[in-house]
């Protein structure tokens, strides 16, 4: 039997690595992948809590998070393709039109 605590700590570590990657990397696709990693870390929390509480609601939430992640990846990558066409680069620092 897996201690729920350890699964939750693993989830926190993965989330934090994802958050650090968002700060660290400059390629917009890598930043996007870091967001996916953070979503996965949260999914691990849901599964661990579902196991801990003995109900299936956490698992159903994981199902919905995965659906939203799939939709997000499709739309996000389409936006990235449009950005690449518009700016000829994928460096996040060059997308500063909305910056004051």
């Amino acid at each position: 039997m897996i201690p729920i605590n350890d699964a939750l700590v693993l989830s926190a570590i993965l989330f934090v690595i994802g958050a650090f990657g968002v700060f660290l990397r400059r390629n917009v696709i890598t930043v996007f992948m870091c967001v996916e990693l953070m979503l996965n870390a949260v999914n691990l929390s849901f599964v661990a809590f579902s196991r801990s509480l003995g109900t299936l609601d956490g698992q159903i939430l994981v199902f919905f998070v995965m659906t939203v992640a799939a939709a997000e990846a499709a739309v996000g990558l389409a936006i990235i393709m449009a950005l690449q066409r518009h700016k000829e680069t994928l460096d996040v620092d060059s997308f500063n039109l909305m910056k004051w």
Partner: protein
Amino acid sequence: MPIDLVLFYVLGAVAIAASVAMIAQRNPIYSAFALIATLCALAAIYGLLGSPFIAVLQIVVYAGAIMVLFLFVLMLLSVRPEEGPSRSKSLKVAAGALVLVFAAQVTSVVTAAARGTGSATFDASTRQMALKLFSPEFTYTFLATAILILAALVGAVVLAKK
């Protein structure tokens, strides 16, 4: 030490190592492969936590569909490794400090929330999942995801069109 516990720690170490490799890598293609390794390790961990349905979904949807989409776009745009200087040292230190504080906070909260190894009669088989998912409780949520997927499909086609 029971075998499932050993497996859990090994897979957890693989997941952490692969995700560190992902953010340390300048070439996005290698990052994508490292993320696939993380996702597969997580799928095995879901299996160990007694959730076979989520484990298979993780492989099929995440490692399969989503990551293939990422690799497809990476190769379509012929992305090159990041060039030029990395982020400035002060920004890295600030990000690291922020992340450490966040890690301490999250760890203290989640470890206070759960103890032990969970209930022994936990049954997350595909049958139980389907009964729950198609119960009246989640009908409208399920229909909303269907509409969301359709909207994403149309949105992606419109955005990616020349």
